[in-house]
């Protein structure tokens, strides 16, 4: 289940980006969102989950951004945030959407901060805000949809996940 969700989100990221415009409010971050969905399938094995987050980030870098480890570290940090959020919030439909919003905001701020420190972008807070609200709609809808689908599949095929 974990592999299917991550790989299909990874590919969907690419397909979706070919369809949407530059100024779109539907910027996809599906790979990132898939990490929120797959967390319960690790049944509390945080170290394994963080490892998968890091590997996903590294592949994201290699295929999409041509950088080496930046998304590896970013996804690792997001993974850490997801584990902490799952301690506070129960894993249900609504909370998954809240986690998605928090993760998008965290991801955008940290990514911008890293690029700023390494002098790859010039300072512009409006750009960060824009990148955040341009990613919220599509990704929150995506995470909600995938949650429902994976929940139904895991019930049908008796795939256990932690709550």
């Amino acid at each position, binding site marked *: 289940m974990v592999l299917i969700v991550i790989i299909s989100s990874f590919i969907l990221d690419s397909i979706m980006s070919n369809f949407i415009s*530059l100024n779109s409010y539907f910027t996809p971050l599906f790979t990132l969102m898939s990490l929120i969905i797959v967390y319960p399938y690790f049944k509390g094995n945080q170290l394994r989950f963080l490892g998968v987050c890091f590997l996903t980030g590294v592949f994201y870098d*290699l*295929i999409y*951004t*041509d950088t080496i480890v930046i998304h590896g570290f970013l996804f690792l940090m997001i993974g850490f945030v997801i584990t902490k959020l799952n301690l506070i919030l129960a894993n249900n439909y609504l909370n998954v959407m809240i986690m998605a919003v928090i993760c998008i905001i965290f991801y955008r701020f940290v990514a911008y901060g890293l690029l700023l420190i390494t002098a790859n972008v*010039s300072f512009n807070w409006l750009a960060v805000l824009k990148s955040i609200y341009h990613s919220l709609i599509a990704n929150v809808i995506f995470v909600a949809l995938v949650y429902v689908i994976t929940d139904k599949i895991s019930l049908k095929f008796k795939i256990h996940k932690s709550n």
Partner: protein
Amino acid sequence: MYKKKEFEKRYLLIIVIVAIAVLLVVLSIALKKDRDLNPVEKLVKDSGTFVINVVSAPVNFIKDKIREGREKNDIYEKYKELKSKEEQMDSVVAANDNLKEEVSKLKKTLDLNTILSDKVYKNATVINRNIDYWYDEVTIDKGKTDGIEKNMAVVNNDGLIGKVSTVSNHVSSVKLLANENMSDKISVKIKVNDSYVYGLISKYSAKNNTYTVEGISENVDIPKGADVVTTGMGDIFPSGLLVGHVSKVTTDNFDLSKVALVKASVDFDNIDYVSVLKRKDS
């Protein structure tokens, strides 16, 4: 016991600081703009893009069919437009041949091997796009094995779209000009009557699909709709590539030079097929 704890804390702090410093160094190397992909990266990128390309083939097929359908709707309008252009075609071809001959004679006279506008084309298809704000890039299906090299200019039917940023064996990434975080300034010239005025593209606004061209001489009146093309200065872009058309002219904050807003000739939301240009070797 207390001293030992203090000692360990101090060590931990040093380790954390060193780790952060190492991380920042690694990141700055990873994000270096002129970095070449290593063989492992090339292998993963080539195979990953191939898989994505195969999986997304049905979606791309449907997308192409939808576009074809839309184009068929406008086919009569296009036919009329082409018909009117066809009448002018013979004279344009004749003028072009004449100019080519003149250029070749001048090159011989001046003993020039190449001129700024000399270029060779390599066509490619866009297979993937990273629209993330910081990385606005597209991936094309041609790489090192097809003769693509870093920093080659990339155009489509409407004009200049960007330059090749990284090259793998079978695919390459193209950094688009539609990047609001543009750090490289591009030298352009604006056609005013029969002469040109020079300027530099400094910014891009995705909202209006416009570039800001700065450093234009204060004494020139620039008409609205004037063509903006590359100058060929610098190592990357050959001369004469259409960038856009002037939509508004203002002056800078100090009233020392003019600033032109240039509507991009390219629709960056609709890039499917591109040509990679290479300056002709001397």
